């Protein structure tokens, strides 16, 4: 259960990595190293040619992974091994179009069969009741995104079609390392919490242990993507880089292995 995995962790940090970078085998090793470093859950992003919600770092990661020959079918071969090698939830992030090629239902069922517990679709329309019902029937969490600019009416709609956790986007633009304003984010999270019992995790723009601590004062978890991928891509040993980066972000004094 994704919600429990987040709630039970004192410091729930969810690392995001792009699948297939630098290669499929490396992705498996990185997943295990992130687990060892104390991740609460792991989000893996499926590369897409036109990732409209992503900033330069994740765009670059996406394009490199596609250039390396990433395919959805190739991913399906590895997913089962990855989910059985860790005792925390694995969440898949994908833009909607690649999921539609063989039918969303079939693709999500195949994820579920391979142990994936949740899916994030950043370009889902705010009213996605059909896909929400589909996910419920299949037994996979549909994690929805809420932005600071999301109107109250849309927030209610999105949250009523959400499970696992609510992903609060902390900035107004695309993903990428930048300053967040904790005061504004705190108000945003409080607003969401008033509407739901689901955990609320904050993503977009988090790159330091201090920010993680600031955010965890009012949120249930944080997601770290661009900063981590930048380190992974810039290091000759991506597996160690992933581990060390996550350790730095979680900071001292917290159990790394239960």
């Amino acid at each position, binding site marked *: 259960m994704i919600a429990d995995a987040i709630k039970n962790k004192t410091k729930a940090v969810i690392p995001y990595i792009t699948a297939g970078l630098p290669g499929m085998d490396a992705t498996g090793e990185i997943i295990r190293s992130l687990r060892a470093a104390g991740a609460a859950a792991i989000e893996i992003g499926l590369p*897409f040619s*036109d990732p409209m919600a992503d900033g330069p770092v994740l765009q670059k990661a996406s394009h490199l992974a596609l250039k390396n020959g990433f395919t959805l079918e190739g991913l399906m071969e590895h997913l089962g091994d990855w989910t059985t090698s860790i005792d925390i939830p694995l969440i898949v992030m994908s833009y909607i179009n690649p999921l*539609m090629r063989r039918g969303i239902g079939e693709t999500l069922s195949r994820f579920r069969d391979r142990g994936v517990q949740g899916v994030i679709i*950043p*370009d889902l*329309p705010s009213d996605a009741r059909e896909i929400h019902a589909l996910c419920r029937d299949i037994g996979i969490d549909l994690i929805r995104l809420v932005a*600071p600019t999301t109107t109250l009416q849309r927030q209610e709609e999105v949250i009523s079609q959400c499970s696992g956790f609510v992903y609060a986007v902390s900035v107004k633009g*695309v993903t990428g390392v930048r300053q967040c304003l904790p005061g504004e984010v705190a108000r945003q999270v409080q607003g969401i919490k008033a509407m739901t019992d689901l955990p609320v995790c904050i993503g977009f723009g988090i790159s330091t242990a201090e920010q993680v601590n600031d955010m965890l004062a009012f949120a249930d978890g944080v997601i770290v993507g661009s900063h981590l991928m930048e380190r992974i891509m810039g290091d000759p040993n991506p597996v160690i880089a992933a581990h060390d980066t996550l350790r730095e972000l979680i900071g001292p004094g917290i159990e790394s292995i239960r």
Partner: protein
Amino acid sequence: MKTELKSFQLPDEKGYFGPYGGSFVPPQLQGVLDEITQAYMEIKDDEQFLTELHALYKHYVGRPSPIFHARSLSEKMGGAQIYLKREDLNHTGAHKINHCLGQALLAKKMGKQTLIAETGAGQHGVALATAAALVGLKCDIYMGEVDIAKEKPNVIRMKILGARVISVTRGTKTLKDAVDEAFEAYLGDPITQFYAIGSVVGPHPFPMMVRDFQSIVGREARQQFREMTGSLPDNLVACVGGGSNAMGLFTAFLDDEEVLIYGVEPSGLSLREGEHAATLTLGKPGVLHGFKSYLLQDEKGNPLKVYSVASGLDYPGVGPQHSLLKDLERVTYVTAGDSEAIDAFFDLSRFEGIIPALESAHAVAFALKLAGKLEKDKTILVNLSGRGDKDIDYVAETYGKDYGVV
């Protein structure tokens, strides 16, 4: 069919044209789209706004654009009579100014400071830079490096008009990549910027809004054609990249069941993968750039590389309403290739003294074929959506020898 035709009052309030359209965007963008939708719905039937817009159409753009009976060309084909809706005579040389003025006025009313957009052939970019200069807004135009090289005169025009032209070097360096980069820039600051999309594509409300602003073309044409000939045209023809000039002409005629409508897609070099941009002809429904529509995509769901001699048609998607019109079989989508378009470019130039844009030359090419198959008392109205000044260097360099230009 009649009840289905009524559904042309689309989209619904969530932006869907049947199964197509919608708003497939990250939530941080949805907020601003909601704001634009609300602002547009407020001014769309507002008398003051419409008076202001139509005064500009008349005194600035030079509307109504005339309809011209292309007698020599019709005679050459020996069949139906070909008429041209002369959008090429608009200020800035294409139909794009119609929706640019509308969007610029809206942005100004919303208190935005900068208009941003992508452009393929540079027609939309020039029109937007013009509108921005007129209403007093800054303007950033994103354009693929390949297109910048091909459409130099338009690039210079935009700069003269005070716009910044940002060269896009990612991917195939053409229109799709320019859209990606413009979206990214927009997400970076959706508060002071207004993304004035260049066609009937993108998330709601753009396909509706751009169509509404363009629909002046068909409304004029319907009345003008009746006055000229005593009846409606038997056939309409327009080229389709994103599909803005086509929706502009078609919209006023959708309920006239006796009018046959053709949208012409570019088959480029061939219908082999990567050599064309015939989205409705060969694509499958998918989601790109925030809306659901037919899409040229590979088996993994990534958009395919597309190609056309006409930069403005070089796009793997198409406006969502076109997808619905295809499924309803209200519009027939056909193709014309590079060489047919170039032939038509020279035919129109040499038989009628009108140099068309390469985009519009695709519509002319199909109209010529169609005319040859029809009786002399039939009529074809072609949307001549743009003029070819921007293309002359490229055409002379690439095809000049074959046509005795160089």
